[in-house]
């Protein structure tokens, strides 16, 4: 195997000097995957596909876009009307951002459910949180580029977060904007960084994958791979499974691009930026709504800390808390399948995040139920925020201590073999046949 890995002489020649072929073979062809992975393990591959799609469409859009306050909005309209298939490329890029976030959010909740962040995958998880942060920054700056009303006022609000910092807040904000206000300097640096950060994301994704391939994928049972029978090679089994998921995902993606391209956007962004008139209802894109709700839920000062600063801190902490999740969770059992209590609270957390998302679109003073005058969306947002942090800071450590986990299977292949008597060796045989053929 070592000696005659490849038949082609040129491949052998290159591989002897630069082992790209053996690397690809080891990491993406023969790489042993747990054989019990379900479709939730598609989402890493889907995220990679969306990342590539965003970079390709983004490079082409940058060829047509003009980063100047007087020309940016018009150049977007030119892309929509005059550039060949410009509308398609822009709609793919704009909806691709939403697709990226939904895929990554499912990927993250998959990790939370099956305990993918636990030892020895803590750094893998933390690199994922870094990718999420970079995605948020990139998405925000990309949204500013069309220079519509939501672009401008979104940039105004987000950069104003930094004014909450005591003493250096104002000079820092002006430094970030490069001006007293959001203007051409801001637009130009956002364009520059919006082009740069995706490539930084590619770099962190590479680290994420390297870290993943050290100990391999976690699996729905959350138990370690113990013997070769527990695994099947990545190719063809998971290339095929990922392709099925990709097909379904692309249908959903295409539905938005072709039939509801502006459904996830805001109509006010088709009005050119006007520094003298704020739109009546400022809302971020849907993927920021839960964080926006957390920001707005803090409306009271605590001692010398102003509500404004506390809101910003709470919003930042909502993402940052994910970094320490591997140490907040005290349970030795990874998968929620075998954690009867954690499993319940996982779903409560998911519902809490959706509720926070709903709070994010509503006006804070609107009533949740007409007739109950004290229960407005601001209050619901505060309850949701407290629960969100309570989940991580209280429930996660405590559940691990008080919960009695269900018995774990002795190995990955045991439950699989017991279900289909005598069929256990078929995938191994097929894998061997595939190798012979190659």
């Amino acid at each position, binding site marked *: 195997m070592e000696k005659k890995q490849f038949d082609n002489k040129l491949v052998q020649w290159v591989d002897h000097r630069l082992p790209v072929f053996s690397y690809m073979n080891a990491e993406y062809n023969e790489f042993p995957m747990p054989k019990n992975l379900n479709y939730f393990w598609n989402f890493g591959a889907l995220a990679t596909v969306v990342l590539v799609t965003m970079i390709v*469409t983004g490079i082409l859009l940058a060829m047509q876009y003009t980063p100047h306050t007087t020309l940016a909005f018009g150049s977007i309209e*030119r892309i929509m009307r*005059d*550039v*060949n*298939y*410009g509308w*398609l*490329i822009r709609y793919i890029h704009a909806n691709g951002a939403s697709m990226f976030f939904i895929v990554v959010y499912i990927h993250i909740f998959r990790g939370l459910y099956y305990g993918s962040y636990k030892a020895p995958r803590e750094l893998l998880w933390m690199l994922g949180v870094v990718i999420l942060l970079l995605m948020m920054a990139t998405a925000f700056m990309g949204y500013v580029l069309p220079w519509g009303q939501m672009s401008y006022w979104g940039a105004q609000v987000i950069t104003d977060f930094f004014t909450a910092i005591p003493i250096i807040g104002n000079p820092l904000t002006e430094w970030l904007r490069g001006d007293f206000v959001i203007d051409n300097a801001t637009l130009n640096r956002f364009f520059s960084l919006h082009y740069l950060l995706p490539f930084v994301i590619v770099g962190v994704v590479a680290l994420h994958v390297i870290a993943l391939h050290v100990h391999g994928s976690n699996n729905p049972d959350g138990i370690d791979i113990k013997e070769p029978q527990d695994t099947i090679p990545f190719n063809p089994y998971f290339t095929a499974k990922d392709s099925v998921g990709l097909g379904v995902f692309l249908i959903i993606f295409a539905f938005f691009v072709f039939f509801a391209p502006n459904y996830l956007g805001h109509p006010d962004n088709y009005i050119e930026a006007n520094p003298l008139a704020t739109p009546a209802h400022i809302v971020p894109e849907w993927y920021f709504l839960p964080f926006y709700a957390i920001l707005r839920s803090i409306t009271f000062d605590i001692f010398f800390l102003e509500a404004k600063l506390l809101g910003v801190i709470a919003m930042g902490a909502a993402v940052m808390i994910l970094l320490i999740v591997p140490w907040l969770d005290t349970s030795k059992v990874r998968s929620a399948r075998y954690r009867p209590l954690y499993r319940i609270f996982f779903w409560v957390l998911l519902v809490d995040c959706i509720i926070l998302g709903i709070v994010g679109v509503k006006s804070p003073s609107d009533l949740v139920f007409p007739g109950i005058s004290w229960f407005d969306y601001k209050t619901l947002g505060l309850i949701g925020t407290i629960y969100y942090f309570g989940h991580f800071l209280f429930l996660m450590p405590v559940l691990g201590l008080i919960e009695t986990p269900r018995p774990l299977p002795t190995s990955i292949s045991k439950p699989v073999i017991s279900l289909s008597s005598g069929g256990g060796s078929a995938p191994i*045989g097929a894998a061997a046949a595939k190798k012979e053929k190659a």
Partner: protein
Amino acid sequence: MADKESTHHGRRDFLQLTSIAVGAVGAASFGWPLVFSMDKSAEVKALSSTELDIASIQPGQAILVKWRKKPYFVRRRTKDEISAAVKVEVASLRDPEKDSARVNSDRPEWLVVGANCTHFGCIPTGAKSTENRGEFGGFYCPCHGSHYDTSGRIRKGPAPKNLPVPPYKFVSDNILRIG
């Protein structure tokens, strides 16, 4: 086991090949809009025609005009220049074309040709009579030394083709429309 596999081979290969083929069609239909987006956009292609007043151009002089963003010479030829262009033996030319095929037969004094040398696209001198017009009295390209005659035909130097004649017509006595 071996028998079983061979009976499945035809089916499996067929499925694999059709999957790859469908995937390739999908990738290509996604790729084409990306490639095509880099081509001329609609507002560039909409630049259809250029009109200009030619009354002020003196015999022996030419002006440069832009049509579809490219430069064109509009030259009012003198009697001598016309006869020099007509007299040339067409068979001896690198890119054989009669002068009558390159000008409007009703108004042969007007020569309208592209102003990018057919070698590598520099703009030849010779619009003004004071500029170098080369050995044949037409245009001379300073970049690599191509000589064009008074019909804009290549006579000497590295350029392969005559200066191209765009579609044009005289809308009235003094108005020329290119495109």
